[in-house]
């Protein structure tokens, strides 16, 4: 709807400045002509409910008897629409009728520029030569009766009919909602889910990729235009920014790998390029940042530095097209004063390719390069765990890449599906439009035509009172297109949620400085919390060793010495661990009891507040 809106302007359609004084005077003339009493200073006039005040651009210009108001408003609107009259077509006729406890009644007229207006059809005017489009503003529209052109009356009674009509029934839908084919056939929550998901698609989001330095950019390598599309899709030219591919979809409970919203992708189709994509990620290195060594550092690699010479060129920057694996260097700087070097390593374990290196020349006073943008490209081909969706709020996760030869095939045409989804995705979700889309897309692909799937299009009456499409229903239209059976086509979108960005696995790894327990956060190589509920579950299973492994061995395992005199493990001195032989001579046992670090730090804290714990180490001291 927004695209039909416009802002009222100082200029008319010829580009000349409008004379607002003249416009106001002519409106005043018209109002006086239809029976408005003009107001004069110091003259009292009747207020509501007998008469209604008339305001023009915020100034009281007169009053109107309540009985006349409806007629005056209708007359004003008629003049507004007709081209011949002096009333401008962007006049806002805010008529607040008399009501009990409602807004203060009156006729509020606005002619000023910079107001938001949108077109609707005035159906109270007999439509001749298409002059029935009226521009209305946000103030007046809440007091108007505007119906949706879906053929119904919107629940209005005949005594109180609609005076205006929206231009399109899809005017109520947003841009994303307008892209769902036949959304009028879907259960409404599914359309809502789809609106959420359409924004997560890994799409072809821009054309000027070569000169962009976005922080993170998802890009689909092999997009396609959907066979089934809405009018909005064409109108907004979304073919320049496609967001998915057409896929041959089998709705089949095939191997069990498509249970619970999982889906099977055809391995060969993926190898041929289906749903391939990449992530572009830009790292910015600014040598002017930081206080101390400003202006001292430059991008450079020492010629003697052979360790990084295969990754970094002598100017300290990476080679374009270079493949960089995890923790490999990609950039090097040298401090000219201290001659110390710094090497930037690629974070994470994922492979990346240097796509583009740009030197920022924003700072004119530094002739040397000080700020550099390095764009990396991460190839992301579909793998198990990646998320895909149809255009009807039906998302799923790839559970297998299934070889072509193991896929079911059509005996007549030899077609194999690109994708298998489970039939259980349909009954409870009631995405009928998805079924319609598959039937229509198949017909469209067999005939080499695009199929229009604008919602509510069968309700829009054409000029001759007939529906736009010749046939009575969708089935009539598509039925003749289908000559053979088999697999169905769907618009499939690849969503940007990928396992490579999400997986979080560790046995042991980094630990917290103070508690010596595993840290949080995927980025830092942390673990997923094994909390109380998980502990309860392990206990219930009797998996004691697993529990011990998780909560002790992989967590804050620690060995400490206990003082034989005071029984404390706290000491100011650093005790060198004794050699095994020395311990044996001293009669000490070779194995040392591990203590939880958490316990040790608790001890420390208690010690500060004058508590003292001791370990009764009698057993240890006695020896064997």
């Amino acid at each position, binding site marked *: 709807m927004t695209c039909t809106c416009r802002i009222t302007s100082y200029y008319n359609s010829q580009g000349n400045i409008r004379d607002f004084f003249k416009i106001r005077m002519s409106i005043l003339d018209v109002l006086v002509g239809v029976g408005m009493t003009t107001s004069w200073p110091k003259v009292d006039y009747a207020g509501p409910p007998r008469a209604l005040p008339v305001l023009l651009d915020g100034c009281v210009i007169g009053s109107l008897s309540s009985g006349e108001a409806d007629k005056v408003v209708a007359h004003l609107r008629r003049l507004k629409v007709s081209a011949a009259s002096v009333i401008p077509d962007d006049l806002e006729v805010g008529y607040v009728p008399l009501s009990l406890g409602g807004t203060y009644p009156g006729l509020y007229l606005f002619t000023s520029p910079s107001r938001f207006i949108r077109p609707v059809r005035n159906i109270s005017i007999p439509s001749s030569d298409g002059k029935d489009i009226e521009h209305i503003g946000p103030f007046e529209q809440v007091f108007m009766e505007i119906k949706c052109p879906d053929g119904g009356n919107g629940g209005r009674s005949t005594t109180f009919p609609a005076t205006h009509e929206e231009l399109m029934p899809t005017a109520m839908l947003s841009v994303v909602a307008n892209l769902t084919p036949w959304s009028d056939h879907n259960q409404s929550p599914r359309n809502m889910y789809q609106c959420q998901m359409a924004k997560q698609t890994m799409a072809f989001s821009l054309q000027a990729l*070569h000169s962009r330095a976005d922080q993170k950019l998802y890009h689909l*390598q092999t997009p396609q235009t959907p066979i089934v599309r809405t009018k909005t899709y064409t109108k907004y030219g979304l073919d320049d920014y496609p967001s998915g591919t057409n896929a041959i979809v089998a709705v089949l409970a095939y191997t069990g790998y498509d249970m619970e919203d999982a889906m099977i992708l055809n*391995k*060969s*189709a993926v*190898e*041929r*390029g289906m749903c*391939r994509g*990449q992530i572009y990620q830009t790292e910015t290195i600014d040598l002017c940042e930081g206080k101390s060594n400003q202006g001292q550092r430059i991008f450079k690699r020492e010629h003697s530095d052979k360790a990084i010479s295969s990754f970094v060129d002598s100017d300290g920057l990476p080679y374009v*097209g270079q493949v960089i694996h995890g923790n490999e260097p990609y950039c090097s700087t040298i401090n000219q004063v201290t001659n110390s070097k710094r090497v930037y390593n690629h974070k994470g374990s994922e492979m990346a*390719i240097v*796509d583009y290196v740009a030197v920022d020349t924003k700072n004119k006073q530094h002739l040397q390069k000080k700020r550099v943008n390095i764009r990396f*490209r991460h*190839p992301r081909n579909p793998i198990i765990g990646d998320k895909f969706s149809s255009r009807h709020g039906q998302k799923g996760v790839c559970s297998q890449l299934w*070889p*072509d*030869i193991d896929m079911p*095939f*059509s*005996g*007549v*045409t*030899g*077609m194999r599906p690109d994708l298998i989804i489970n039939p259980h995705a349909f009954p409870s979700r009631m995405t009928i439009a998805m079924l319609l889309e598959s039937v229509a897309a198949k017909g469209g692909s067999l005939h080499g035509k695009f199929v229009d799937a604008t919602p509510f299009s069968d309700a829009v009456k054409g000029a001759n009172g007939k529906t736009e499409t010749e046939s009575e229903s969708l089935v009539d239209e598509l039925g003749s297109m*289908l*000559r*053979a*059976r088999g697999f169905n086509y769907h618009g499939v979108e690849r969503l940007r949620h990928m396992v490579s960005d999400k997986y979080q696995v560790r046995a042991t790894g980094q630990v917290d400085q103070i508690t010596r327990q595993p840290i949080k956060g995927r980025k830092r190589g942390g673990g997923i919390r094994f909390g109380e509920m998980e502990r309860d579950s392990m206990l219930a299973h009797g998996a004691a060793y697993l529990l011990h492994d998780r909560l002790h061995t992989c967590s804050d395992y620690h060995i400490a010495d206990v003082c034989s005199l005071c029984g404390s493990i706290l000491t100011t001195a650093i005790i060198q661990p004794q050699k095994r032989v020395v311990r044996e001579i001293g009669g000490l046992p070779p194995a040392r009891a591990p203590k939880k670090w958490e316990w040790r730090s608790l001890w420390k804290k208690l010690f500060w507040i004058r508590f003292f714990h001791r370990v009764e180490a009698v057993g240890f001291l006695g020896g064997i």
Partner: protein
Amino acid sequence: MEGISYQRFPKVKIRELKDDYAKFELRDTDASMANALRRVMISEVPTIAIDLVEIEVNSSVLNDEFIAHRLGLIPLTSERAMSMRFSRDCDACDGDGQCEFCSVEFHLRAKCISDQTLDVTSKDLYSSDHTVVPVDFTDNAGYDSTEPRGIIIVKLRRGQELRLRAIARKGIGKDHAKWSPAATVTFMYEPEIHINEDLMESLTLEEKLSFVESSPTKVFDIDPNTQQVVVVDPEAYTYDDEVLKKAEAMGKPGLVEIYAKEDSFIFTVESTGAIKASQLVLNAIEILKQKLDAVRLSEDTVEADDQFGELGAHMRGG
């Protein structure tokens, strides 16, 4: 047990044979054989495809992997593939895949110097071996043959350049779809359609007509002379059951009976152009034989003779 033999002698009858298309009947065997043949044709018949790309200059709009992927998917004429070595078990080059026994080198050099967009196609790939070249589709009718048209790799605008070296190797479709020589391989059971003539005669002409038209494909027709329903093309039947449902709806169940002949198959083979469709079938049979030999001659099979029973003897007998 020795005496009984389940050996069958399958027959092949070729219906239609073009360079990239073959249609044939396979009779007197079962679905396991037919499916084995189909699977081998798609995923185990070797071809040659570009497997390694060294990019020297790429200032085109497509990134390096994209171009490498596109190069890999270009079908190359692969008559040599059966006699070539897999680079992983090539003795001559120690598996680095750079020798003449297991690889073919390609060069591509293209630079756009005019204002017109330059299409870099498979025609611009120069092969070190004249028997392994990108498949030429121009002589197949349909295109304007005066203009040489290959498969477009990338389009270049003024000043953009693409220079690369590519190594093509032998491989099979199981490893990567680019090595699959088959665009489509499919088979269907041959349908056997019987019309119950007596019951059919009880229909009026309109009913016959609506019956004929109920089939989405043209299987039946009405003889213009005798006004009898005749089967014109049983193989057009797609096992869609539409005519059976129609007969049921007309209150005449058993009007037609349709069986699938379970020992006879109609194969359709379409090749990518890497090898001829006929050669694809022959190679597939050759590879199937090699695979069966591997089972038959392996130590395990002889040892497990008891387990295999009659099958073991059968396998050893050939």
